[in-house]
């Protein structure tokens, strides 16, 4: 039987010891002397969050299909175990073998949100791997970064040996073969990294230098080796129906955030909302075939025993075979007593009909994401959802028995005015009014419940808003206050509940999102001063972060509130996500002119993604 890395005494002391024991259904065990490459795949947050991430499941399954590789998992130990491991000098270990991470060939870390950057350092530190790439020896694992945040890897590039830019399914085999070859020839770590820099999608930060202008913006990027690319293009799966996807995903013992079969129906999005990073990064939109999804749905349910299946994509309503897929799933799931969960559906007659079949109307709520309160501002952000559509969808829903509506908005969007903010309250009020008009008094069971939530807008790299200034914390809070005041002055205010997001953490997220190499030292320093689990409000230490920026001589307004000039070189400009900077700039200008842009299905905008020769870019346009 496997021997656990932690003693019974420790496991009995910590919260949810099942986070650390591995052995879950479908977790992969191999013999370590029968493989040539040991890969530790990490999500730098607690187990329940990390285990809910589809990307890791895909890569884990793919790497373990390679006979010469054993991929294992590792997550951030929760704060209770973290303290014990530091005190007792217990090295961080992988869940499957329970072996120390330091013994592995690779440590791959997926970086899904800015607020986990300090947890990357926690994982390295507990593993006993030097925090800075330059301090690592031949014995240390090669530390790889991947995931959406690596589309601006510069703020944390000192901690990584290598970044994999784009979708993981394509280049790992080449990278691992190169590693094996270098190992056979007894070549150094540096030699391997230099060669890896020539593999498509691979970025080796230590092989480039960056110089800055007097105003702090980037002057130049200088490659330090001959023959390495100036621009690194993202990797992308061209045939998403014939690729790696886990038929036997790992089934956790404890309840995790995503405790169900996840069926990714497509990648990318046709919509082009101007604030949305995912909408640009994953272009062009590529649909998986109905046959593939049907086969996988059945096999994944059989192999996991999960009681629920969920469709995953950026905008499921845009999947062309959605009615056929749902018919199939409803039939299969009904006979097996399996629930279907349907996130991100546009509310219309079709989706309400489907939801009526798969959910308990009384218990579920409807979700709209208008993102902005007025049509003017929705044009600025290119969110093609009109008030008419929202009110009509609400009316249909109220007729169908729904009584709860969730609305998502952003505050602090470019060009936002007090009228736009009032629009949030007015739209919420109108939806409530629709309820009272639609549902006669005798059929009402109390009030309609409308929950309006606002988050603060944070400009992200590779979006048309990458040039936009972000609000200050004071401006954010003032906007939330204006929203609240406007809501309380509505006729139906008693039916409307308002929630808003923390402002402190939005400022930090903004700094890190559009940061440059100068932030490495601040992240390191903040970690050393005790910052960790920044995504968890109870552990977020804003004072320490702000104090650290000051100590490091970093002016946070340079990263947040500053308006970027059209010709500024951004820290992430050396990456090519498929969408050109010219296209993004054109979109930025159109936004300022309050003009919307048609989606990919209607008309090609020449964003640049057509060069991948796949997905929507290969289809005829116009409806």
């Amino acid at each position, binding site marked *: *039987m*496997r021997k*656990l890395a932690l003693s*019974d*005494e420790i*496991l*009995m*002391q910590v919260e949810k*010891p*099942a986070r650390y*024991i*591995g*052995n*879950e*259904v479908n977790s992969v065990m191999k013999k370590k002397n029968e493989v040539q490459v040991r890969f530790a795949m990490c999500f730098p947050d607690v187990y329940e969050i990390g285990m809910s991430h589809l990307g890791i499941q895909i890569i884990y399954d793919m790497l373990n299909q390679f006979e010469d590789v054993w991929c294992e998992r590792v997550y951030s130990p929760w704060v209770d175990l973290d303290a014990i491991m530091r005190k007792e000098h217990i090295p961080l270990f992988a869940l499957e073998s329970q072996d120390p991470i330091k013994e592995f060939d690779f440590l791959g870390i997926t970086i899904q949100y800015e607020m986990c950057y300090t947890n990357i350092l926690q994982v390295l530190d507990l593993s006993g791997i030097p925090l800075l790439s330059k301090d690592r020896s031949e014995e240390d694992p090669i530390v790889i970064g991947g995931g959406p945040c690596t589309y601006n890897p510069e703020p944390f590039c000192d901690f990584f040996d290598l970044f994999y830019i784009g979708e993981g399914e394509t280049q790992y085999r080449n990278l691992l073969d190169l590693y094996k070859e270098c190992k056979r020839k007894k070549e150094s770590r540096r030699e391997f990294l230099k060669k890896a820099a020539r593999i498509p999608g691979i970025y080796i930060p230590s092989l480039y230098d960056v110089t800055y202008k007097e105003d702090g913006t980037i002057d130049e990027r200088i490659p330090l080796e001959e023959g390495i690319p100036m621009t690194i293009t993202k990797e992308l799966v061209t045939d998403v129906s014939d690729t790696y996807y886990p038929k036997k995903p790992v*089934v956790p*013992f*404890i*309840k995790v955030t995503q405790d169900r079969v996840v069926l990714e129906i497509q990648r990318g999005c046709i919509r082009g909302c101007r604030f949305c990073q995912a909408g640009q990064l994953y272009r062009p939109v590529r649909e998986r075939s109905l046959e593939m999804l049907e086969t996988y749905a059945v096999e994944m*349910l*059989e*192999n*996991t*025993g*999960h*009681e629920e299946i969920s469709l995953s994509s950026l905008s499921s309503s845009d999947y062309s075979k959605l009615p056929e897929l749902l018919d199939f799933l409803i039939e299969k799931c009904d006979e*097996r*007593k399996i*629930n279907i969960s349907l996130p991100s559906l546009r509310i219309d007659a079709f989706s309400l009909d489907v939801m009526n079949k798969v959910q*308990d109307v009384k218990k579920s709520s409807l979700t709209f994401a208008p993102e902005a309160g007025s049509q003017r501002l929705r044009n600025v952000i290119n969110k093609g959802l009109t008030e008419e559509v929202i009110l009509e969808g609400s009316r249909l829903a109220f007729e169908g028995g729904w009584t709860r509506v969730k609305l998502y908005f952003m505050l602090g969007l470019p060009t936002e005015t007090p009228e736009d903010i009032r629009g949030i309250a007015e739209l919420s009020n109108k939806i409530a009014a629709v309820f009272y008009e639609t549902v006669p008094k005798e059929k009402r069971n109390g009030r309609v419940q409308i929950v309006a939530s606002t988050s603060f807008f944070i400009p992200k790299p590779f979006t048309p808003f990458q040039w936009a200034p972000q609000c200050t914390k004071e401006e954010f809070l003032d906007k939330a206050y204006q929203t609240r005041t406007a809501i309380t002055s509505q006729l139906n205010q008693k039916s409307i509940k308002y929630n808003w997001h923390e402002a402190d953490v939005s400022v930090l997220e903004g700094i890190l999102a559009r940061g440059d190499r100068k932030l490495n030292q601040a992240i390191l320093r903040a970690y050393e001063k005790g910052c960790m689990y920044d995504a968890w409000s109870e552990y977020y230490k804003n004072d320490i972060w702000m104090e650290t920026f000051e100590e490091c001589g970093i002016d946070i307004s340079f990263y947040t509130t500053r308006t970027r000039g059209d010709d500024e070189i951004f820290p992430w400009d050396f990456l090519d996500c498929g969408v050109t900077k010219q296209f993004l700039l054109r979109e930025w200008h159109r936004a300022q002119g309050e003009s919307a842009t048609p989606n990919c299905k209607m008309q090609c905008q020449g964003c640049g993604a057509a060069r991948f020769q796949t997905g929507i870019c290969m289809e005829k346009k116009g409806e």
Partner: protein
Amino acid sequence: MAENTIKVRIKFAKYGAVKFIGHLDVMRYFQKAIRRAGIDIAYSGGFSPHQIMSFASPLSVGHTSEGEYFDIEMNSFPSEEEIKNRLQTAMVEGIDILAVRKLPDEEGNAMASVAAASYLVGFREGCQLPEDWEERLKDFYAQDVISVVKKTKKGEKELNLKESIYELAIREIPDNSLMDGMGRRNGVYMLLNASSGGNIKPSFVLDTFFDSLGVTLPEFGLLVHRIDTYKNIGSEQERKLVPLIWEK
């Protein structure tokens, strides 16, 4: 209860790393395992149907066992052997299906049936036991009345612990036991009341004993293993305890 269903009782063992999986998660684990194994379990009605399943007696986190039980209701019944084999192929390391038994219709459900449970308790490294602890334990058990205060949901209650200890003896832990690294050392065997109203934890008995000696064990000093869970086929006055699955 669904109509025309067949009641089936399943016995399993739990040991190794999975001893850290809590009771609710073990239930979730079996719900998924039953789906993976394609067991024709009956579901409740309503908008969100659930499997008809009932566990005998929750096992504390960290304890091992070779006497765990749960009941299910099935729509069709292939054979005890087939159910056992199918379920076993859906298990992880550390959970083994030991027996499957079709129950007579009149059999009470597993949870309500539980009357007692037997345990073997070992002492981990770091437990500083007095030299004569075995003798003293025998003396402790020889008392007619062991007066204790037990914390319940409603407050504190004084009771005679002796009435809830049906057997107690020093016993050598076998070499091949599921209790890691405890082989050949002496432990304590206990048969205790495990009914829903009167359940006594083995650690409570030993804590009471060591308290009486003025000895404090380390917080996680005891290694507890459940041997079996029993029902009473005798009477209130004259107990006759048999395992929840037993041969007449």
